[in-house]
Each structure stands twice: as C-alpha cells, then as structure tokens.
C-alpha cells in the first residue's frame, strides 16, 4: 500500500479484497503525516485516537459482511475552522488556541458516518482570512510542490496535505476563493459547491452569506464522492438547501461533447503569462473533446473586489464580536474592567489581518456610512449575480483562470494587503453569485508550478461541473 497515491476507489477495492484493513490505512497515513509535517506545517494536530476508533469500526463492519459506507477507511483532513468534538479547533488564531468545541460540524459527522477517518486538523489563515496561509498564528504553511512558496489560502493546509498525499481528501472552506486558489497553487482539485449545498453548522462563521465548506482531492471522482457524502439539507443550518443531492459521480460518466463553454473575456484580459498559456491549452483540449467555445462578457467583474471586501468585512466584524473574553477560552491577563476585558482580549487575541477586516467592516457599517458602503455593495452584488445568470442563458459552463499567477514566495506579498486582495479577482465573483465553482489542475508553468483552471456552472448544477471536469481529466487536462 502506497498511502500517498491512494484514492477513494483504490481504498474501497483494497478493503473489499482484504488486501489491507482500514486500521492499516489509518496507521500508514498517520505515520506519513507525522514524518512529512515538519516540511510543510500543514497539520496543526493529528487525531490518531479518533481516526483509529473509526477505522476499527469500519473493519468490524466489513468483518460482519455489512456495507462500511462510501468513505470507508479514507483518511480525511479537516480545516481547523471546522469544529470537531473534543478536538481543539483553533481557526489559526491565538484567540482559540485552547478551544475544544463540544460538537461536530455536520460535514464532519456525515463523513465519519460514511466511514471516513478524521486524521488531523489543518493549518489555515486566521479565521479563514487570507490568500497565502501566512496569517496563521501557528506559522505559515509551505507548498509541498515548492517549499519556498505559499500553498495559497485560506485553506492552505487542506490543499497541501492532499498534494503531499498524507490525506486522501480533505475539507476546506471558501468565502472568496479559499478552496479554489490553494487547490490551484498545490495542483489538486478544489470544489466550492453552491451556497447552501453543504451545511455550515460547525463552520466557524467568517462571512455568513459567503461561507462554504467544500472538498479537496487528487482526482475529480474523489471530490465528487466526498461532496455527495456531506451535501444536503441540515435542519441545524437554516440556509442549507432543500434541493435533493444529485448523483455527482454518476454525472461524471457522460462525455462533454456538445457542452457550450463560455470564456469570460474580462478574465483573460491581461493574462499574458504562463497561466494564460496553460489556460489556452486547456481550452484547446476542451474543444478537441467536443465542447463548443464562445466568448462571454461579465461586465461587472471589475467591481467585484470592492463589493466583496465590503460585504465580507461587514459580516466578519459582526460574527467576530462573539470573541469577547467571556466564552471562548482566551481573556487578556491585563484586563481589570469589563471594557478592558473586551478591548485587550481582542487586541491581544487577533492577528493583523483579522483586525484589519474587523476595522474595515465596523467602519462600513458605522453610522452614516451604511448606504454608501454596505447597501451599495449589496446592489453591486446583485449586478454581479445577474451577469452570471445572463451568461448561463447562453452557455452550460464558464471556464476561467483561478489566480492571475501561480504560487508566490513566502513573504512576497504579505506587506501589501490591497495587492493581496486584488489577486482574488477571479474567484470572488463566483462566491458573490453563490454558484458552484471548482479548480482543476491544468498543467504547470515553465517553473513547474501548478496552474488551475476554474469551472463555474449554474446554481445546483454540480453535475454539469463534475461532468466537464471529469471529461477534462480523462482527456489528460491535468498535465496539459
């Protein structure tokens, strides 16, 4: 058994043929994670006891001749903004360094019920705010593909462990690109489903109208299987969707012949680099497998960053008000009065980027500014969503870049927050519209850095998205 190349399908086959047990897969994955982690800092902690307990249950089920579930024996890593009962969940923040949640996120509960082994919690930007994973209070994550570079963010750890092979799949969270961008930087598949498709119960809130949980995997099928397992209505999240979960792996069997693909012209302008060249090769490949390619305009694209950074910071300033020194483990030792307890706890507990976003969000919501900022942004968000709705009247899917550039060097952009925000341009639009989008590998640059291709479809058309992604994968798109 070669842990770092296992897939959900190969684990299923190996368990069925008694080639190995779930406990053996679990032990091997934990050993590899332990040995590799000093290189990347991708795991904040491993959960051997919990993972082994599930593994033993899976093995007992198999011995009893029963179905162990679609994720039986699959090592899964979980981003540390997703709660795990009895296991410290830090959100990459000093504020929650010792927080042990008393409940599991619905996504974690579901994947474990399907036989998945939660082997560890992954590093991320503090409260999922960042595009490089350099905003973690527990040190940055290094990209396993090129150790002097960032893995992307905010789900950098979850992307890195899958690229490294210490987990077969992982869960990340995406608010403005935090799954797709690290997926592209690390050369793995990253999926942001339709808003509400996966319950947010147990996802520590950053920007509630934009937060998603989604999977990372090394192939399209594994991502589809994990998403199928965790998706669906959850009474504990009133914004979770009632729509039935379609068969994503079933949709992958169909070829892409006859699909109409739109290329948003605004996204390809100024992409005169290796990333642009790789995308062009990817698009040529789609043409060769029978897709019809047309140009599409999404005219409000240039307003997306401004719109997003008003909405997400406003929601964050409100969501993060709960860290007040009363309920969540950390309280400043210097605090004498009630007011000091609030102010010093937050001043000491939060890092620079979180403070910046709380401040921006508080400012845009403050008296006299609401109409000019928050209301304006909500209206522009409607225009951006309308751009997509109109595009999907003409095409079945959109294909676009994920990031303007591949993984950059650690420290390269950390001192310029606006430049970092601007790099999110291609992923933020889909998040604002709430449509399903994913990043698939699309070859590498001349420096051997992974490039990602983004696929976006209509609300709840995950089947169409997986169909196209799987056809692209089968045609050799990942190494185009």
């Amino acid at each position, binding site marked *: 058994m070669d842990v770092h190349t296992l897939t959900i399908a190969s684990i299923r086959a190996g368990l069925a043929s008694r080639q190995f047990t779930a406990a053996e897969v679990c032990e091997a994955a934990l050993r590899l994670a332990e040995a590799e982690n000093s290189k990347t800092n991708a795991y904040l902690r491993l959960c051997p006891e919990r993972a082994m307990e599930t593994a033993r249950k899976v093995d007992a089920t198999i011995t009893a001749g029963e179905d162990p579930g679609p994720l039986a024996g699959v090592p899964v890593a979980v981003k540390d903004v997703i709660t795990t009962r009895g296991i410290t969940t830090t959100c990459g923040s000093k504020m929650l360094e010792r*927080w042990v949640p008393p409940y599991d996120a619905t996504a974690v509960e579901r994947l474990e019920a399907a036989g998945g082994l939660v082997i560890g919690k992954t590093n991320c930007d503090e409260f999922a705010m960042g595009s490089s994973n350099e905003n973690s209070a527990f040190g940055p994550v290094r990209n396993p593909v090129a150790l002097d570079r960032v893995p992307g963010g905010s789900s950098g750890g979850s992307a890195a462990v899958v690229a490294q092979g210490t987990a077969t799949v992982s869960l990340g969270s995406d608010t403005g690109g935090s799954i797709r961008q690290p997926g592209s930087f690390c050369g793995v598949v990253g999926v942001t489903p339709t808003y509400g498709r996966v319950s947010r119960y147990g996802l520590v809130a950053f920007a509630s109208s934009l937060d998603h949980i989604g999977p990372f995997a090394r192939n399209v099928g594994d991502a589809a299987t994990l998403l199928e397992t965790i998706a669906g209505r959850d009474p504990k999240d009133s914004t979770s969707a009632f*729509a039935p979960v379609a068969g994503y792996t079933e949709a992958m069997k169909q070829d892409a012949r006859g699909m109409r693909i739109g290329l948003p012209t605004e996204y390809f302008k100024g992409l005169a680099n290796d990333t642009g060249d790789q995308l062009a090769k990817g698009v040529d490949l789609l043409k060769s497998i029978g897709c019809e390619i047309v140009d599409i305009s999404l005219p409000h694209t240039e307003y997306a960053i401004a719109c997003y950074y008003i909405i997400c910071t406003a929601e964050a300033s409100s969501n993060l008000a709960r860290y007040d020194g009363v309920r969540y*483990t950390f309280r400043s030792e210097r605090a004498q009065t009630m007011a*000091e307890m609030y102010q010093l706890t937050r001043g000491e507990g939060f890092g620079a980027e979180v403070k*910046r976003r709380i401040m921006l969000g508080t400012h845009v919501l403050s008296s006299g500014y609401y109409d000019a900022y928050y209301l304006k942004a909500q209206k522009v968000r*409607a225009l951006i969503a309308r751009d997509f709705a109109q595009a999907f009247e003409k095409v079945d899917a959109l294909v676009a870049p994920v990031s303007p550039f591949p993984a950059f060097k650690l420290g390269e952009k950390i001192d310029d927050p606006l430049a970092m925000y601007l790099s999110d341009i291609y992923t933020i639009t889909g998040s604002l519209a709430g449509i399903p989008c994913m990043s698939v590998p699309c070859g590498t640059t001349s420096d051997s850095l992974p490039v990602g291709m983004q696929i976006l479809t209509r*609300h709840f058309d995950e089947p169409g998205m997986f169909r196209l992604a799987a056809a692209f994968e089968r045609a050799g798109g990942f190494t185009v």
Partner: protein
Amino acid sequence: MKIGEQEVRYVAGLANLSLSGAEIARMAHDLDEILTHIDKLNELDTSAVEPMAQVLYEAGETATLREDVTGASFDNETALANAPLAGAGQFKVPKIIER
C-alpha cells in the same frame, strides 16, 4: 484621504479593539488605500437595483420553519468548559457596577 488616525481610534472603540500606536498608524494607511479602491463602486448607477442580501435561486416551497419543540442541549458543565473564568455554574466577568 478617506480615513485618518482619529477616525481609526473611533472605529476601534466601536469594535472594542485595543490597538497600539503603531497599529493605528498602519491601520489608517491600509484602510485608506482599501477605501480609495472601494470608491470605484460609485462609478455604477445602482438606483434601480434591488440589494442582494442573500444568494437567490429558483427553489420550491420549503419547510424552513419547524415546530417549536425543545431538543437536547449542552449541560451546564459542557457549556462552561471553554470559559476563561467560571464559578457556581456561571460565566464570571469583572465587576460592572461599583457599589
């Protein structure tokens, strides 16, 4: 200039966030830059646009409202387990009212 150090102090007060002198200076610079970029939204006439408060899609009738029945909840000990300071089954905070 969109925002200065004085306003940064005011907003930090609203957010209950203590910032050092150096942080205030840096914050004023960063927020000013971001707010200047945000000004771009004024290029758009949105007078006839309905604000989008949540993601909207075509969907059938749903049963989001449920019966108001009590379910299981955390016991007192579990609820207090993450408190920085607790006692007598309560969260403890600094004194608010002086006698």
